[in-house]
Structure formats: C-alpha cells, structure tokens
C-alpha cells in the first residue's frame, strides 16, 4: 500500500513544472544581475559622458572668455600708450583728453550709427570710455558726448579708490537697448608715465555686453553673471531660482572665493551650477560667471537608457524562459519515461506477485491433492495386485477366468504407472523435484531406451533409424532425461502404423544439443496440435491405443526443468516429428558414472 501511495504522489508533469520553475528562476536571476550590471555601467558611462561634455563646453566658454579678456586687455594696453593721451594728461591739457581719446579710440569704439553694418566682431567693440585721474576719481567728459552715455550712478560705479597699478576688470549691469538688462564688461587700464613709471591716470573702457542666457554652441548651458548680490540670468533668476540665488549667496560670501560647483533643484529639476570668478583680484566688485546646466537632458537620456535596458531584459528573459522550458522538457523526458516505466513495472510486478501468490496457493493445493491422492491410491492398488496374483496361481481356474485375471492384473500395472506419473507431475508442480545435474551421455541413454523399446512385443515390425554421434553429452539429471527419452520413444511406437518407421537423430548445435524423434503414422490434426501437450489429452487417433495423456506433458515439463524444451516440429503426410532441446555438457562427453 505504501508503494501505491508513493506511486500516486509522483507525477511526471509535476517534475517538469518544477524543473521549468527552477530554470526560469535561475534565468531570471541571471538576467536581472546582468541587466543590473549593464544598466549601472551604462548609467555611469552616460553620466561620465555628460559630465565630460558639460566640462568641455564649460571649458570652451571659459577659454573664450579668457581669450576675449586677454584680447581686450591687450588692445586697451596698446591704446594707453598713445602720445596724445599722455600729452593731454601730462601737459595739463585735460580739455583735450576726451577729444584726443575719441580720435585714438575710433577703431575700438562702436559707431552707433554704423553698428548694424559694421563687419568687425562686436565682442571687441567698446560702448563707452572714461578716464580716472591718479586718485581714481572720474574725469568727467563734461559736455563731450562721444565718450558714450553713462548715468551718474554708473560713473560712480566706475570710480576706484586709486588709479590701478594693474588692469582691472569689472562688470556693470546696464539697461540694454531692448529694454532688458545687459552686462557690460569694464576694463580699467592704468596709464603709466613713460618717463617715471608713475600711474598718472586710468582709461576705463566698457565693452559690448557679454551674452547672458543660453550659451551659443552648447546644449543645455545657461550662462549668467552674479554681480553685487544679484544673479543676472534671464529666465532662471526671476522664476523659481530662489534656492539657486540663496546657494549662490552663500557660496560667494567669501570675497576671495574663486569658484566652485553645487547642485540645486530649480523648478523641480536638478541643475548643476558652476560659478567662477570673472575678475579675480580686481578692485571692482567681484563678479562671477554662473553656468547652470540642466540635468533634464541627462535624466531623459537615463530614462531612455533604462527603458532600453528593460526592453532588452524582457527580450532576454523571454528567450531565457523559452530556452529553459525547452531544456526542461528535453531533460525531463527521459526521467519521465523512466518514471512511467518504473511505475508500470511496479504495477506489473505487484499484479504478477499477487497472481503468483494465488497461483502458488492453488498449485500447492493441487500438488498436495495429487500427492495425497497418489499415495492413497497406491496402497489399495498394491493390495488389489497382490490379490489378483494370488488368484492367478490357483490351479482350479478355467482358462477364461485365468485370462480375465491376467487382463485385470495388466490394468493394475497401468494404474500404477499413471499414479507414478501423477506423483511425479505433482512433485514438479509443487517445485519439490530435486534434479542432480551432471554430464549425461545421451547416446548411451538412447541406446538403453531403444533396447527397452525392442523388448516390447508391439515393437515388432518397426524399422528404427538412428543418426547419433557417439558420446553426445548433455547437462541434466540422468534419471529424468531417461524418462523424457522413454516417453518420446513410447509415443513413437504407440502411434506408429504397423511396419512403420522410427527415426532418431541427435546433434550438437553450439551450446545446445538437439534430439529429433520422428515416427510414421496418422498425422495430428492442426486443431489437435495445440492441445497435445495438455494433461490427460488424447488425440482422436489414439482411441484404441493404450495411454492416459500424460506422457508428452511430463516430457515437456521435464525438458523445461532442464533448461530446454520440447516441441512438435511437424505432423503431416503420415510423419510426426518432435524435437527436444538440451543444454550441451560443458566438457568433453563423459561416460556415465552410475548406471541407470
């Protein structure tokens, strides 16, 4: 029952399902790990690329700015060497200062009327010029108008504590022509006396506004200027940039701060902010270039990347799952077959055992019955035979009575023979027959059996043909092998026609020895052929032939007990032939050690 329970709990489909689930789990985990790694790597790469691009653009902007400043300083430096400016300042001719400067600065100043058609780059054009005296005070142009318009407050912003020893860069937020605010870059260049090296004045030039807002040639950079606590960056400073302004205020609280970076959220999206002092060491108020880089591009890129990775992961997973399903099916098929086979085997075995058990019981009961019956029959038969023999020797019997006694006596012999056979069969059925295997000389046994056959009165007139090699050895029990031979020869004699023929042939065929016994006589009908080996079967041809239908059955059972068999080779045209298969004796034929 336990086996049965186990059997029912094992289902091949279950196994396949488990295998698929396990493989899918493994595939999923591996895919997830790979995707995680790839995603991380891609994300890091994208971030680095983004940072690199940003830094590159920033460096480009900064280089342009530095170059521009250097160019402006250079030009301004060349201008302050002009003799007329020196003459005006040194020769006490301040009234000629601004007119002279207008002439000398004609190349650098923007001509208001020709601004549109002027082909020269406007970045290097000055909007206004002023002079500071040796004390840093503004030398007012007075009624001179060509120096560029500046308000009084703006002129005050340009003044310094003293005429500078080095060029100073400053920034001025002015109302632009378009109504918006413009950032003007101011360079204060000292004018040095050629004789003494003293700084006698300074030329202040205001250049074209530096562009504020989206930087040209870049993707996401917004560029502005932080000046005097205010961020000049249209779009960002006004709306949503409060946090940015607060962080900037903190960052540039120290006047010697040269630059840095921070990240801040503006209008809900992250921005990287780089600030860089534009006029390091200047006497003018510190100004910072503020570059704001939106992370939106990066985030969008990362989002795109994430979806790509997820998509690729899905495809990979599908492929992996399909493959694992296929593999699971492929791997589990032999196991399932094995399991099915073993289940069938088990069932068959259980059935066979049950059948065997009942059959064995029946067999034992039958065997016991036949043994008992044989035993119980032998005793009265012996008494009967003794009585008949005693009667036969009496002298006062008539010949008729004597003949009758003789027939009765013969019947008791037959009965005894039947009982012996039944006893033998029942022992065989009960598996109690002990065989003493050994090498048996088949030729010798056949000779002996033929001798016995020749002694029978009915054998007269029969021709016996032999085809026997001498000393043909088989493996078997000598006594029971002899019984097989006797039964076959007996049948060949009994079912022969008068004056008929018996043929005996034997030969070795590999590890087997084949014996064929043929006899003339009426053929066995095909319908009877299937029953001739059954117990107590007697063919229709044997109605007037003595026998009780146990011989062939007994011979076959004995042949099978010896590991061989007995079969009907054929029965037609008045010739019937049986074949016995024996195991050949392993060694060379030996002569029997004991006599039959």
């Amino acid at each position, binding site marked *: 029952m336990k086996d049965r329970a186990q059997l029912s709990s094992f289902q091949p489909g279950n196994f396949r399902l488990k295998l698929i689930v396990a493989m899918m789990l493994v595939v999923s985990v591996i895919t997830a790990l790979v995707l995680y790694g790839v995603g991380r790597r891609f994300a890091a790469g994208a971030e680095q690329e983004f940072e690199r691009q940003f830094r590159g653009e920033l460096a480009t902007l900064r280089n342009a700015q530095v170059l521009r400043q250097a160019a402006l300083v250079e030009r301004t430096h060349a201008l302050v060497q002009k003799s007329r400016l020196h003459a005006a300042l040194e020769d006490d*001719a301040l009234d000629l200062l601004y007119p002279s400067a207008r002439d000398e600065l004609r190349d650098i100043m923007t001509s208001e009327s020709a601004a549109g058609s002027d082909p020269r780059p406007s970045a290097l054009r000055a909007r206004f010029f002023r002079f500071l005296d040796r004390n840093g005070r503004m030398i007012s142009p007075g009624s001179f108008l060509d120096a560029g318009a500046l308000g009084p407050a703006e002129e005050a912003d340009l003044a310094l504590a003293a005429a500078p020893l080095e060029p100073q860069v400053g920034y001025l937020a002015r109302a632009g022509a378009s109504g918006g605010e413009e950032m003007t870059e101011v360079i204060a260049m000292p004018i040095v006396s050629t004789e003494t090296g003293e700084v006698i004045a300074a030329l202040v030039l205001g250049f074209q506004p530096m562009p504020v807002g989206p930087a040209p040639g870049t993707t996401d950079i917004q560029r502005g200027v932080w000046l005097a606590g205010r961020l000049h960056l249209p779009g960002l400073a006004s709306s949503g940039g409060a946090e940015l302004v607060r962080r900037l205020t903190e960052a540039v609280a120290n006047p010697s701060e040269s630059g840095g970076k921070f990240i801040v959220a503006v209008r809900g999206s992250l921005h990287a902010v780089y600030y860089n002092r534009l006029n390091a060491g200047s006497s003018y108020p510190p100004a910072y270039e503020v570059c704001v880089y939106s992370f939106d591009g990066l985030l969008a890129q990362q989002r795109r990347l994430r979806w790509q990775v997820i998509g690729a992961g899905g495809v990979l997973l599908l492929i992996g799952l399909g493959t694992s399903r296929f593999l699971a099916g492929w791997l589990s098929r032999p196991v399932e077959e094995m399991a099915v086979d073993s289940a069938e085997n088990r069932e068959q075995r259980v059935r066979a055992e049950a059948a065997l058990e009942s059959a064995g019981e029946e067999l034992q009961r039958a065997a016991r019955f036949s043994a008992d019956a044989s035993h119980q029959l032998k005793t009265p038969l012996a008494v009967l035979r003794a009585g008949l023999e005693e009667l036969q020797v009496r002298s006062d019997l008539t010949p008729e009575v004597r003949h009758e006694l003789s027939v009765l006596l013969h019947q008791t012999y037959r009965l005894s023979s039947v009982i012996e056979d039944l006893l033998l069969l029942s022992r065989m059925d009960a598996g109690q027959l002990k065989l003493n295997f050994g090498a048996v000389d088949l030729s010798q046994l056949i000779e002996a059996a033929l001798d016995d056959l020749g002694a029978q009165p009915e054998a007269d007139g029969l021709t016996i043909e032999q085809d026997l090699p001498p000393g043909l050895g088989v493996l078997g029990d000598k006594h029971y092998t002899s019984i097989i031979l006797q039964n076959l020869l007996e049948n060949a004699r009994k079912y022969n026609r008068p004056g008929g023929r018996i043929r005996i042939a034997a030969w070795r065929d590999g590890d087997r020895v084949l014996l064929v016994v043929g006899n003339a006589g009426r053929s066995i009908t095909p319908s009877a052929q299937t029953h001739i080996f059954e117990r107590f079967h007697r063919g229709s041809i044997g109605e007037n032939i003595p026998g009780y239908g146990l011989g062939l059955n007994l011979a076959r059972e004995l042949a099978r007990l010896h590991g061989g068999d007995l079969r009907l080779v054929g029965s037609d045209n008045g010739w019937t032939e049986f074949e016995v298969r024996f195991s050949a004796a392993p060694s060379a034929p030996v002569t029997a050690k004991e006599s039959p």
Partner: protein
Amino acid sequence: MKLRFTAYCLCLGSLLPGVVLADAVITGQVALPKRRARAVITQRYEIVAKAGVLSVSPPLAVVYLEGSFSGPSTRPTVQVAQKDLAFQPTLLAIQTGTRVEFPNRDDVYHNIFSYSAPKRFDLGRYRADEKPVPSQVFDVAGLVTLRCDIHEHMRALILVVDTPHFVVTDEDGRFQLKGIPPGNYVVKAWLDSQTVRAQPVKVTDEAELRVDFK
C-alpha cells in the same frame, strides 16, 4: 597794440643813454641738480618728468634777463630737427615771436604736436622731403612740450621768453649774456618746469657782471 607800441617807445627813450654806453656782459654759473650717472657712449639730452615736473637730463638751465628792451623786431628762424627718433636740440629757448622749423631728418614719418597751453599745434604726419619745412611761430611766453604722435618717447621743451637776452647754460651751468644795456633787470634761471630762480641786477658801465645761482 597801439598801447604796447607807445610803452615800447617810452622804454626805448628812457634807456637810450644806456644803449649809447658800452654794453655789459653778465657771466655766472647756475648750480644744477646732481646729474645721474653719465652715459658712457652717447651723450643725449632727454626730457624727464618726475611728479609732474619736467626737466632736462643731463640737467641744463636757461638763464634770461627780464626787463624792458628795445631791439630789432625781426627774429631769426630756428630749427628743432627730428634725428634718430629724437628732437635736436632737446631744450630750446626762444624769444616770443620766433618761428621754429621742425625738419624731419629721419627716414620715417614724424608727427609733431603740442598740447601745452602757450602753444597748441599739430603738424600732422610728414617725411623728410616735406616742403616747406613745417614751422610754428611762438607768440606766448611759457613752456611748450613737443611730442611726436607716432613715437611716444620723443619729447622736447621749448621755453618761450619775452626777452632778447637769454641763453642755455652748458652742462656745468655756466652762462654768459652779452650786450646788456645798463639798467635794472632781473636775471632768471629756469631749472625745470616748476623751478625758476631770480636775482635782480643793476647793469652799469661795468664791462662784466657776475651772477651766480646757488
């Protein structure tokens, strides 16, 4: 103009006896500032400005006599040439009304101009072959700084004095003024743009008078 002419004639009349007398000579020496290390190869005069004070290096002085003089109304024309990217001479003293020519003796352009109050002018660019030679008449007494617009380092001084008696000292400050009619004068020594020393003198028949500026 008429008034000035009348005064001129009056002066001339009052001084007439002195003129008749033999002219006197004033000699002397101006104590010049210590010169800097002497240039070994080429001795060149140049204009230096220190704290807004213009002077000549190596130091030179101009000595002139202030007073009323009669004399020829014609003035000789003098020259300040540009040679080797420098003015020659570096320091020029002239009487008011004198015409000064500025010949270019270099192979390059020069552009002489002055922003000084006594005489503002701008000659424009010209080369050596410029004819006539650009010139200016200096009518107002005072110090005029000459510059070249093209060569910022070029500098020269013209001291315009309202007297016919003036002289540039030698390197040691020695000077001699000749033909001085008798009278009361003030001898002035110009040392730099901010320093002018003065000594009153009385010129008599004495043939020689000595005036030193310590």
